[in-house]
């Protein structure tokens, strides 16, 4: 009897392993996606952001069909794309900041004489 119970519990745990892993991954993907959106990914990294969002939705859809393996794959893909989108946003914003700084540091041209009526070289 105890041997049977242990076997059933193990089987249950293995069976429950899919949703647990899925839950963990879908939450990570969700968080990453939300962060990416807040950072402005739809503007700065639309390809990665929208693909992540599509994978994320597909992962949830697969969950509804209890196909956790595919759901985890899609959630993982969604998470990767969301992180990639964040990196791209960071990179692009840094570039913008540098450009703005350089523009601010460029000294204004010194006002010169309107004309140069001085004696020219002979």
């Amino acid at each position, binding site marked *: 009897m105890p041997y049977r119970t242990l076997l059933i519990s193990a089987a249950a745990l293995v069976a429950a392993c899919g949703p647990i892993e899925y839950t963990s991954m879908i939450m990570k993907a969700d968080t990453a996606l939300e962060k990416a959106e807040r950072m402005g990914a739809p503007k700065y990294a639309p*390809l990665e952001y929208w693909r992540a969002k599509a994978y994320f939705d597909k992962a949830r859809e697969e969950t509804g069909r209890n196909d956790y393996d*595919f759901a985890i794959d899609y959630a993982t893909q969604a998470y990767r794309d969301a992180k990639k989108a964040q990196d791209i946003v960071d990179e692009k914003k840094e570039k913008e900041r540098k450009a703005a700084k350089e523009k601010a540091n460029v000294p204004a041209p010194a006002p010169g004489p309107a*004309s140069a009526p001085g004696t020219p070289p002979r």
Partner: protein
Amino acid sequence: MNRGNDLFSRPSWRRFASLLIAGIASSLAACSVGTKLRNEASVLKSDLTPLKDEAERCQALKSFALAWAEIDFVHGELRQGDQPRANGHLANARKHVKDVQNQIKKCPAKVIPVVVVLADRDKDGVPDVQDRCPDVPGAKENQGCPVDTDGDGIPDNLDRCPNDPGPSENDGCPWGDRDKDGVKDNEDKCPDVPGPRENKGCPWPDTDGDGVTDNVDKCVNEPGPKENDGCPWPDRDKDGVVDKDDKCPDVPGVPELQGCPRPVYKLIKVEKKRIKLSQKIFFAYNKAKIDRKSFAMLDEVAQAFRDFPAIKCRIEGHTDNRGNKKRNKKLSGQRADAVRNFLVAKGVTADRLVAVGFGPERPLESNKTAKGREANRRVEFNIVDEEKPPNKGGPSSPGLP
């Protein structure tokens, strides 16, 4: 053999076989549809992939991403064996690919930056097409032409006087006027000597050196006064006294007589230092009264004074040494005075005549002989210079015969 036929002839086996065949056929059919979908998805992906750059440019990356994902989902569904869903994702993928293509179509054509290197012959940074002076370096603000502050057409870098307009012949400086004659040096043939504009800035010449310049000299080769337009005064009688000063312009004469001929005297002779008398002046004995027979000669003397208005004379009375010396001196002075008075009476102005009596002091010859004494008794007319004061020898002395 029969056993075999029996086996296949049993209904259960027949049903199994038909089911097996149907299953295999169904599997083959499903496999065929799956392959078709997979191929279509691959074709769609190969259509989509090259659109990435354009999709990015045209902000169609959302559709691109969704199309990409839907194609992935097709494969995923096929792996799961769900062809209807795969078909649905394929339809979605097609829709998104179409969206991408439409957005790219609507997007303005890509502007390919064309770097055109414009010619700039004078290398002033202003391309020739915009350069008003393509062969002369100049400032961009001046449309590629050099700055010309004084506007004389000569750029400042070549203009010696950039603030004063001047011709190029003078390096952009205005012409000067060194001799200040009002004729600019470029028009002045004598830029260092003042001269009128009419003679191109050169002074008029004076060929005959008469002080009258040739432009107003009617006789450029003959000296003449300004009053006669640079021509010499005429001298009809050629006596050296020009007609305007010649009282006898048609008779040659002497300058002392203003061009008139020297008069001819019978009894006297006008010399340089004296008026020489042809005979003595006779007086009454022991008196200072002129004898009548000397009047003619003294008339000629008076005439000489009129003819030579410049001469002045000292009338000297002299005696011999006989008799009282004092009295002789007094008498000689009185006789000189008498002659002077005669001449004044004849019109000679008194200031031209001085009468002096020397008595016996200046004999001409020896008083020892009668002839000598005769020669010593005399009256002389000595011409004196105007400047020299007359020798005032005091009143006349007696002793003249």
